[in-house]
């Protein structure tokens, strides 16, 4: 009877262990380690990581082995009289010198890889990466194209009102596109606070610092969509500004570049067109949701003490010139940045018009609209 009890205990223990290791928790064990990534450098970095990891494991087995052995073998019961030794110069020398040698062995490959990472020669394609609160801008320096990359995860998913999608918090409206096999050089900086551009699959993490340009490079041979994140605390939406890079074959890349250039031309045409207030408000709402709600909130009420309200603000109601100026220049010493380079003329005019005509502002103020050509005029050099 006792025997039966033990076997059943054994069986249930085995079942418990089995269920733990086959549970979803351990389903993707490889997801619990650093990614090997898709570049030569990222694989080297992964190799260094595993090498130092196994060195630590080996040291741990020796040290903890001796320790656990002592804990069981030298209890007061088994060894009532402790030894009295308390020094041993050769032993102490040995455990100073041996770890030092292990460290030297470790430092050599690490220094080699680091030197490779620090190759800062020109790339085939140079892309400027600019961090903003809370989005990334990419400018392709050779092709003179650029765009912003915003999180597209729906606010309802974040607040658990709708189910979360596959790429929750790792999806953007416009990914960086790069061709396979070319040396891409990223020139990384920031517009407001410090951000950090991290793409684990390329083993690139570089801080984006206002006033500095940091460089990083990569050559990717495997097409695909790669996902990373901002890794420097940059304010309240730090967790909501992912990095997405699409690596495509060269011909697809060329098509994409051509498409971007064409879109820029179309935008120029839109600027010249005559806009009605309704059209501007309609276009402006989307721009506002993407760029302004984080601080000023979707009802225009802002956050007391930090971000001023737009609903009922004197500037938004009655001072079109100052309103335009704030968006174009930003506010010195405050979180409000200049949007002159972030928004096209059309979008700038649309978002200003939207705020001037929403939340009762049109009724309480002059309700004047701003059209794209106003922005063009503003940008002309003042005489």
């Amino acid at each position: 009877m006792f025997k039966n009890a033990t076997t059943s205990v054994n069986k249930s223990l085995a079942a418990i262990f089995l269920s733990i290791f086959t549970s979803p928790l351990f389903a993707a064990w490889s997801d619990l380690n650093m990614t090997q990534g898709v570049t030569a450098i990222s694989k080297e970095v992964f190799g260094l990581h595993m090498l130092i990891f196994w060195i630590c494991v080996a040291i741990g087995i020796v040290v903890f082995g001796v320790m656990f052995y002592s804990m069981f073998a030298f209890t007061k019961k088994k060894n009532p009289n402790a030894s009295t030794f308390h020094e041993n110069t050769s032993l102490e020398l040995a455990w100073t010198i041996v770890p030092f040698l292990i460290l030297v062995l470790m430092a050599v490959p690490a220094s080699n890889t680091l030197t490779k990472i620090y190759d800062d020669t020109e790339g085939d394609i140079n892309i400027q990466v600019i961090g903003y609160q809370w989005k990334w801008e990419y400018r392709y320096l050779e092709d003179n194209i650029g765009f912003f990359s915003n999180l597209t995860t729906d606010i309802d998913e974040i607040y658990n009102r709708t189910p979360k999608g596959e790429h929750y918090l790792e999806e953007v409206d416009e990914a960086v596109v790069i061709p396979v096999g070319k040396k891409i050089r990223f020139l990384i900086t920031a517009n407001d606070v410090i951000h950090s551009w991290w793409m684990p699959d390329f083993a690139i993490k570089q801080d984006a610092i206002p006033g500095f340009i940091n460089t990083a490079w990569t050559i990717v041979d495997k097409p695909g969509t790669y996902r990373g994140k901002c890794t420097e605390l940059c304010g309240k939406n730090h967790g909501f500004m992912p990095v997405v890079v699409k690596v495509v074959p060269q011909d697809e890349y060329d098509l994409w570049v051509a498409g971007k250039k064409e879109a820029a031309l179309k935008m120029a045409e839109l600027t010249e067109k005559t806009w009605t207030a309704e059209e501007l408000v309609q276009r402006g709402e989307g721009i506002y949701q993407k760029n302004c709600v984080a601080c000023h909130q979707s009802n225009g009420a802002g956050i007391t003490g930090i971000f001023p309200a737009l609903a009922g603000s004197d500037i938004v109601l009655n001072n079109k010139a100052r309103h335009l100026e704030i968006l174009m220049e930003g506010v010195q010493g405050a979180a409000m940045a200049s949007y002159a380079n972030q928004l096209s003329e059309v979008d700038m005019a649309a978002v200003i018009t939207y705020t001037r005509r929403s939340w009762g502002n049109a009724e309480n103020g002059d309700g004047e609209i701003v059209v794209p050509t106003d922005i063009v005029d503003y940008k002309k050099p003042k005489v």
Partner: protein
Amino acid sequence: MSAVIETHDHDDHHHGPAAGLTRWLYTTNHKDIGTLYLWFSFAMFLIGGAMAMVIRAELFQPGMQIVEPEFYNQMLTLHGLIMVFGAVMPAFVGLANWLIPMMVGAPDMALPRMNNLSFWILPVAFFILLSSLFMEGGAPNFGWTFYAPLSTTYAPPSVTFFIFAVHIMGASSIMGSINVVVTIMNMRAPGMTLMKMPLFVWSWLITAYLLIAVMPVLAGAVTMMLMDIHFGTSFFNAAGGGDPVLFQHIFWFFGHPEVYIMILPAFGITSHIIETFSRKQLFGHTSMVWAMTSIAILSFVVWAHHMFTVGLPLAAELFFMWATMLIAVPTGVKVFNWVTTMFKGSITYETPMLFAIAFVVLFTIGGFSGLMLAITPADFQYHDTYFVVAHFHYVLVPGAIFSIMAAVYYWIPKWTGNMYDERLGRLHFWLSFIGVNVTFFPQHWIGLAGMPRRVPDYALQFADWNMVSSVGAFLFGASQILFLFIVIKTVMGGKKATPEVWEGARGLEWTVDSPAPYHTFSTPPKVS
């Protein structure tokens, strides 16, 4: 080291503690001030811990459930500041106050009035810091490292109060440290040469020098922030020709010695406890002293390993990588010494010993991840992820905080005259041990898998282990209520302790009665 104490009963008209509240307000007695520090730090531990519970509750599942991102950032900032400056550091100062005079055979600290002042400005500093939660714009929200310009141009108005609070904390630490140095240098019993000093005293002597060296640097950093915010300077403002990276250099020149400030006294405590419960003289007393000294010196030349991704030149990256790896050597020596002390000892497992052994094992694990983080190319992947969070919590929670708990169990019979409840103590240990590992071990994995730190929400692949981590955190948090209960129970009563308390205890503090008389060593003992 053997100690002989000459027991002269001195005049009995000499005073005991004053009655009532004024005893605590006006006290210049090192034991009273030690008690004040310890209770204060425990209160801060609970407040900072409550904030950690808010953080783990929000991270229990992906999505925003409990708090908003703004408030989440305030929680993580205050949690860090309170645990570092309010819980760990004052706890060590409290232990220093209680123990250093008794260990060196001195009647009190050298500068008792300053001692009183350095304690009583602390609650003021934390009152100011915590009150910022109720200010317009909320409390500081830029992380305990407060990188500019997030903490200057983009900070809430309460940052000015934060700066003032940091200044006060710094003044308190500097005064406390000067007191420790002066006491150790001038008030040791005859015959106690420097190399005969107990290791806790040694560890605090080194810690005190580190504090005196780096707290003014921190004060400089926050003063420059103050100037940037209110007086139009541009130290850290790129638009005005300033340099945001300069802030990080200054901060980490303070910050790295600071992390050793939080661990060196733990080395001292652990050495005493392992020696006592192994009933065997500590192995390598001299090499322990040299190891701590080298760690302290190295701590001044490794600061930029916190900044491997800011774009330092290659030469600097290599230098800081090598220098950082070097720290593993003296740290290894300490661990080997502890293990060798246990080897061929005669070991029993009372609560302090359990905490001390857990300290050695888990601190070593934190040391391993530290060594991994030192490898610059790998750090490009680890930096600012949960791997770092796991690393520094392993050295701070089962490191610094376990050592403080071990110290409380070890010396509380000396402080109160009563033995703590061994059964409850062990229960507290096992709950904390399981809680701490369940909380922080999975964080290594989610960090490696790519979860950044300081985010209120995360992608779905990190969900399972975040939930496990939160469950561990709630267990660890709840277990500390048990600790509070055990301490109060011991203060109220319990089995009377003998002067020696522990069979294998060595050192002057075990030669006086338990509880230690209000004034000890009015006549210095002779150490041979």
